[in-house]
Structures are given as C-alpha cells and as structure tokens.
C-alpha cells in the first residue's frame, strides 16, 4: 500500500485543472511528468513482487521483499526502443491481461538480431515476424537505439486477469544458415 501512495499523490496533483486541460506552463508539464514517473516507478515494484510471486509461487512479502524474477518494463517502446530486448540474446516475455476475459495481444519488441525463435508456455514454436521500423521513427529526436526492426508475435488467448510467459531466443548464424 505504501508503494501505491506516490502514484495516488500524482493522480491527486493531476486532477488540478491545468493538468487535465494541458494549459500548464512547459516547466510545470515537465514537473508533472517527473511526479507521475516517480509514482509509476514505485508501482513497478508492486507489479514485480506480485507477478513474481504468482509465477514462482514464492512469497515475497515482508519488510524487504526481493522478487526472485525481475520483471522489466520497456518505457521507450513508444519510440521503438528497448535496451533489454535489444541487448539480450535470450529473454522471457510475460504478458499480463488486466481484463476479465481472454484476449490476444500482438507483442512488438525492437531487436537487433536477424532471426528469433519464440516459444509459448507449452514449448510450441510460434510464427514470428521481423518488421522494419518506419524510417521516421528511427529519426525521432532523443531516440537512442540501434534497432531497425521489431519482433512481432502473437500472445494468443491470454487468460482473464492472468498471464502467459514466452521464451525468446536469438538464432545463431549457423541456425539461420541451416534453415
């Protein structure tokens, strides 16, 4: 509950009319962004602890909970950039469905490799596609990424208020050649 307070407070501040209407001065807008991100960062810890506990079955509550499984958010996917998916050859993508009915989500992650294998929770290999990132996106000011393609796969039938985890592995040059 304590970890939620920063975001609660940020929401309280955002109810001020200039935040709602977007009529705040530029430096105030930047301060609002700072407050909001601070709140989101604290909630990230809750998400980490809760999902890690559900996934691993280990209780992480207590004064100093340490999630066994660190779950990272990619905050820069709005500019098709994610240091984690770009720099790791192998990683796990966990997709959580906050709706109370099954949904399908098309996952898009910027990557640097030429070919990837994605397996669903049952170990089945999925169809994956590498789609070039549009050139104007590559030129967005402030974007710090070498990725020129996005890995796309379908996270099908995510359970209501539940998740599925997918393993993603970059294929080696030999594997690509063999195929």
């Amino acid at each position: 509950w304590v970890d939620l307070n920063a975001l609660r407070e940020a929401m309280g501040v955002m109810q001020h009319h200039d935040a709602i209407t977007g009529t705040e001065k530029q430096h105030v807008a930047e301060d609002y962004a700072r407050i909001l991100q601070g709140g989101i960062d604290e909630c990230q810890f809750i998400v980490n602890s809760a999902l890690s506990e559900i996934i691993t079955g280990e209780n992480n509550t207590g004064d100093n909970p340490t999630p066994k499984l660190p779950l990272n958010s990619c905050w820069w996917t709005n500019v098709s950039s994610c240091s984690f998916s770009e720099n790791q050859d192998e990683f796990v993508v966990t997709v959580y469905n906050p709706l109370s009915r099954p949904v399908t989500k098309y996952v898009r992650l910027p990557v640097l490799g030429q070919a990837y294998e994605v397996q669903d929770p049952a170990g089945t290999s999925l169809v994956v596609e590498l789609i070039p990132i549009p050139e104007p996106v590559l030129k967005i000011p402030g974007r710090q990424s070498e990725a020129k393609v996005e890995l796309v796969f379908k996270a099908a039938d995510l359970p209501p208020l539940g998740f599925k985890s997918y393993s993603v592995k970059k294929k080696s040059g030999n594997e690509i050649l063999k195929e």
Partner: protein
Amino acid sequence: EDVTELKSGGVGVVLDPNTGLLQEVILNGQTVKVAQEFLYYEGFVGDNEEPKNRSSGAYIFRPVPDKDAVVVAEKAQVKIFRGTIVAEAQQIFNEWVSQTIRIYDQENLIEFEWLVGPIPNQDANGKEVITRFTTDFATKSTFYTDSNGREMLKRVRNSRPTWNLTLEEPVAGNYYPITSKLSIVDDSRDLQLSLLTDRAQGGSSLKDGQLEMMIHRNCLHDDAFGVGEALDEIAFDKGLVARGSHFLVVGPHTNKTGEISTTAQERDIAQRKVLDAWVLISPAYNDSSYLS
C-alpha cells in the same frame, strides 16, 4: 512488396497506386470507399484585445477564419511489408508527418499509427494538425461522439439541441472532445464507420461523410487566457513528436441476428486499448518448467 492492396481474411485496405493514399477499406463484409489525408489548420494570431483578435493557443482552438485546412502532402511514399500475422503499409507524407496502416490476421479493425512532429515553428502562425477520413456516407450533418468514454451523444453540425445557433467559429464551434470514439452513420446503406482513439483528442465531422481528429498542434502565441506562454512543446531541443494510433471499424449499423454488432466490436476494441495487456521482460530463466 510492390502492391497497393493489403488483405488478411475479411479485413483489407486498398491504396491509390498513383498517390499512395488510402482509397478503400474492407471490413465486416463491407467494401467502403475511404480517403484519408493529413492537413493542418493555421492557428490565428492576434493581439488578444478583442474576442475576434484572440490567438489560437493552449486554451482555445481558433484557426484563421475563412481559410481551409492545408493538405500536408498530395502523395505519400509507401513501403509495404506483408507477413502472416501482420501486414503494413508505411507511408511518409513529408519530413514531419508519416503513418503506418496495419492489418492483423485475427483483428477486425484497421490500425492507423501516425507520427507527427517536430512541427515546423518558423512561421508566424502555429499549425494544428489533423487526420481526415472522407467517405461517401450520407450523414445528414450528424455525427456521434462519446462522453468521457461512456454514452455516445448525437451531434448535429452547426446546431445545438436547446437553442438556435449562429456560429462565429464554424470549425472550432463544431469540434467536440473525443475520449474514445467518433462515429458516422449512413442509414440509407445501413453502414456505420467509427474511429477509436488511444487517447483523448478533439474531433468533428465538418462535411457529410467526413471524420477528422486533431493529433498534434503548436501555437506560437499565447492566447492570454492565463498560461502566459506559447504552446510549443520541446523535447531533446526539438519540437515534440507525437505517436499514436487510431482504429477504424466499418460495419452494419443495425444488429443482425446471430452476428456481433459493429458497436459491440467497437466496445471490445476500446476496452482492449484502454486496458491494454502489459508486456514485461525478464532474463532467461533456467528452469524449463517455469514457462509452462
């Protein structure tokens, strides 16, 4: 690929081979002529002394009177990428406007992911950028907007429900807040076309069969309503770039027995976009039983 048509199951888009612009959409068993273009209104600049001299700014949208919106580009450079799960047309209109049109293998919608900015800020007037969809729908001056993501409200152009209206501002006076959906209906053909947003925007239908949505703006003069500075957002020493998506749905307006109504489809999409699934990444986990 060197094609101008993308299709996946019952969903498709056709681009004009000469201009690269949208020409037709196929959805829910309907093929509808839909043109799309990006335009901008020039924001009015005045001394703010009298109402007619108010500048367009953070508080008010006030395009230059009697001046049509300027088309950003008559043609777009297009690249097509077609896969099994997603097919997309990447359009570049100019240095600061581009778009990707996407269709997915199992989605009953067409996604328009737009990218606008940095908007040039060297002119005297600001630019208020819109995306406009034009159809041949007979809409009788009527369109529908949502109210805080709740009920849809009927809007009639140049009209208010409880008093006789004479609009001094024919563009801004017909703009309404769009929290999640803007729709038009052609009763004579039993068709409904809706545009769903990923964020609150302003939108309107300024001509029959048209829908437009404002997606980005800069206003280089303060409107003297209180903020005390021009609306010219900067990030990384450049004008802000905005990226977002519209989701277009077309289908029958009236419910057919045994079929999911177009409105129900739109509600499903809106829910999935507002409460989108979370994507989280972890290092590879050694225990293979973990994934299952």
